Structures are given as structure tokens and as C-alpha cells.
């Protein structure tokens, strides 16, 4: 039986191995993904993003417990950073989720960013597909701790929760562009700390400044203490309300189209790059281009166009 067939029968080991093959960029992973793709699209994907130390992992642990109580199977993808110097990583998000380790209805996978800059790893969407094929009802994706501009999660998750903590800065922070624009739900975690009400007020004020057309989703701010489980029921309720809104408003169609476009274009770009590198290898193009650039007889712009023209058989200048 192939890995993908085993995944579709609920085989945890096979799923874990397929995820590794995806993460390690094995050509076999693509073959397996083709086999499961048609059987995915059933899971609801929730994104949890926010700065390092905001309590994302603890929140994921609480959300997992809550969805398990409702009888849902939960997959978790938790992302931590790769060292730019050694390529190594310490993936420590599981520490907060250990109570679910022996629950057959929960599958937790840690991924390292491996150089990706948008808050996710390159493999995240495909790993989520495997969890979907494995029969998970809910998939929670926890991004690496983000600053202001890592917003890939919004294209991967149906509902994105932005988690903040008190004392992150004054209210000008709240009107900057970036992660504060992408939340469907905002969470002020560690709400027992001083300044929580002020942070919640500033976020709410920022959200009210938006020009939300009638009938569009209006994000709200929720206060939680993930460590104690305070505010979790309300947060889960809001996530489900957002899901209902996506479906009843028909916005789900737009979301899926945009997500699929992103997924396809990412795969196409990766694939074109790989083919171009292999092509240049075969035709010994790279040393020739580098020699030409060294004596200024070739510029890199024309060289790139020539490679594309030779490889694909058409002139990029003509389109």
C-alpha cells in the first residue's frame, strides 16, 4: 500500500512520514499528494498568529481541548524558526500541548520555517492537506512568532486569530499595516496582566476605524487567560460564528478561490525554478552566464530571458 492509501485509512505513521517527505522536498511526496488531493477540503482550518511569547501554543492547547469536547478530531501544525546559521531548530510548541499526546483524536506536528519568511514553512499547506486526508475535522495552524509583516496565514486558514498581549506598545502600533489587518478575531491573551483593558480598547478602536461595508465581517476583540482556560468558550464561539458567516455570506467561495490560486502559483513557481536549474545544469548555462557577467558581455536580465526562451520555447519579450 502506498503512503497516501495508508493515510486515507487513518494510518498515523504513514501520515507522519508523508509530512516528512513533503518537508524534505522528496519528489515522491508530489506523487502521494496527487493521490489524496481529491479527498481533502473537509477540514476547517484555524490560524493562530501573534508575537513570540503571546501564548499561542497554550491557546492552541485550550482550543484543541475545547474541540475535542465537541467530539471533533483536531490536527495541529505548529511552526518554530530555523536557525539561519546552522539550519537547526528547536521545536518547542508541543510542550504546551502534551496532555493531548496520547489522544488518538489529536495529531500534532511541529515544523521548522526552513528559511520561509511569511510566518509559515513552505510545506505548511501540504502538511495540512495530509491532516485533512487523515480525517481531522479541525486543523489549527500556529505560526512562528511574528512581528508586523508575516501574513501568509491569512491565505492558509479559514479563520485567522491574531493574539496580542498587554503592553506591546502605544496605539500607533495598532494602526500600522500588517498582521493587525489580517485578523478575523483578535485576542488579548494574558488578560490578567496590567494594561489588558487598554490594549483591548485600542485594538477595538483600530477596528472601528475600518470602513466595513454593511454585511461584511466585523472582527471583535476577546480577552483570554489561556493558562487558566478563561475566555476560551467565548473565543471558540466567535470562531464558529465567523465560520457560519463565511458560508452564509458566500464569502467562502472567494476565499477558496484565492487560497487555491496562491497554492497553485506557489507550486508553479517552485516547479519552474527547479526545472530552470536542472535545465541550466544540463546545458552548462550558469558558468557561461557568470563568465559573461564578469567581463560585462552579458547582463543578468537578458540572460534570464534567454534561459526562459530556450527552456520553454518562446520569447518572454513577445508576451
Amino acid at each position, binding site marked *: 500500500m502506498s503512503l497516501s492509501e495508508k493515510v486515507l485509512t487513518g494510518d*498515523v505513521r504513514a501520515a507522519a512520514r508523508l509530512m516528512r517527505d513533503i*518537508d*524534505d522536498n522528496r519528489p515522491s511526496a508530489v506523487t502521494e499528494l496527487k493521490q489524496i488531493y481529491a479527498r481533502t477540503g473537509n477540514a476547517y482550518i484555524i490560524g493562530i498568529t501573534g508575537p513570540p511569547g503571546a501564548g499561542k501554543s497554550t491557546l492552541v492547547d485550550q482550543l484543541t481541548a475545547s474541540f475535542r469536547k465537541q467530539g471533533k478530531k483536531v490536527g495541529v501544525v505548529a511552526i518554530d524558526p530555523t*536557525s539561519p546559521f546552522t539550519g537547526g531548530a528547536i*521545536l518547542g510548541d*508541543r510542550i504546551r500541548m*502534551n496532555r493531548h499526546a496520547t489522544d488518538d483524536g489529536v495529531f500534532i506536528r511541529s515544523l521548522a520555517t526552513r528559511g520561509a519568511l511569511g510566518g509559515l514553512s513552505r510545506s505548511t499547506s501540504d502538511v495540512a492537506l495530509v491532516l485533512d486526508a487523515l480525517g481531522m475535522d479541525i486543523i489549527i495552524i500556529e505560526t512562528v512568532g511574528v512581528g508586523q509583516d508575516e501574513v501568509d496565514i491569512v491565505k492558509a486558514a479559514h479563520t485567522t486569530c491574531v493574539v496580542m498581549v498587554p503592553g506591546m506598545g502605544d496605539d500607533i502600533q495598532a494602526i500600522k499595516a500588517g498582521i493587525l489587518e489580517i485578523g478575523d478575531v483578535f485576542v488579548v491573551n494574558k488578560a490578567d496582566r496590567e494594561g489588558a483593558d487598554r490594549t483591548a480598547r485600542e485594538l477595538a478602536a483600530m477596528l472601528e476605524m475600518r470602513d466595513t461595508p454593511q454585511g461584511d465581517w466585523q472582527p471583535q476583540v476577546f480577552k483570554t487567560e489561556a493558562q487558566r482556560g478563561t475566555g476560551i468558550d467565548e473565543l471558540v464561539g466567535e470562531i464558529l460564528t465567523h465560520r457560519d458567516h463565511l458560508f452564509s455570506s458566500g464569502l467562502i467561495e472567494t476565499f477558496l478561490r484565492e487560497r487555491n490560486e496562491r497554492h497553485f502559483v506557489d507550486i508553479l513557481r517552485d516547479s519552474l525554478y527547479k526545472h530552470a536549474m536542472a535545465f541550466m545544469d544540463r546545458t552548462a548555462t550558469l558558468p557561461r552566464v557568470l563568465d559573461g557577467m564578469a567581463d560585462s558581455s552579458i547582463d543578468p536580465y537578458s540572460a534570464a530571458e534567454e534561459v526562459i526562451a530556450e527552456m520553454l520555447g518562446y520569447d518572454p519579450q513577445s508576451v
Partner: protein
Amino acid sequence: MSERTLRILVGKPGLDGHDRGAKIIARAFRDAGFEVIYTGLHQTPEQIVSAAIQEDVDCVGLSILSGAHNTLLPRVCQLLGEKGADDIKVFGGGVIPEDDIAGLKSAGISEVFTPGTSTEDIVKWIGTNIRPRA
């Protein structure tokens, strides 16, 4: 085709509450270019084995200072075997008497590192003995 990145689970089974050693090892593995899944304190063998399988690690390193190594380390190997995952190697470290090492190895533990072992030596042992799966 790109090389696989080695994945290692570092965990602390049982009841002792000292994870400084485990954290130093985790950090040394990170610096050696491995992906380290650190599961923290007070883990049962069942939790460790489940995490090792879900994370598709190549090996499991267990730090143990409580004296329960003769029970907990073989139990991890046994559970991995029951799940058809005995290709995941297990090594241990901590306060483990020399006299116990032979017994642990015959129970399936690949190597035991006692106090005073340098992190370089452990990383070197991994490099020689643990290969990322094909």
C-alpha cells in the same frame, strides 16, 4: 534532491524536574543543524512514543536523573516496537550507573551517556550512528 534534515525528539520521562541538561543537549543539536522536538518535563513513555511517531523523528534522546531509567527507557523501546516503529533509535543520558548500561543496551537502548560526556561527543555519536531515514 535536497538532503534530509535529521529530526530528534529530546524528552524527559518520569518525575525528576531538572531539565537543564536536556536543554543544553537540545541546543547543541540545534547548533549541529538538527531539528529538535523538545517535549519538556514529566513525560510518560506513552506520550514520548506518540510524539516520536507523529513527528517522524529519526531518534529519541531521553534525559533521566531520577533513577527510574531501568523501567522507563526499556518501556519506550517496547512501545516503539509495539507501534511498528522500532526503526526509531533510542539513546539515554543522565545519572545512570555503569552497572546498568549493559542491561539497558540489551533492552534496545542504542547508547547511554553518563555525566561528564561532552556535547561534542554526543553530536559526533549521532553523526556516526543515526542516519535520517531514506
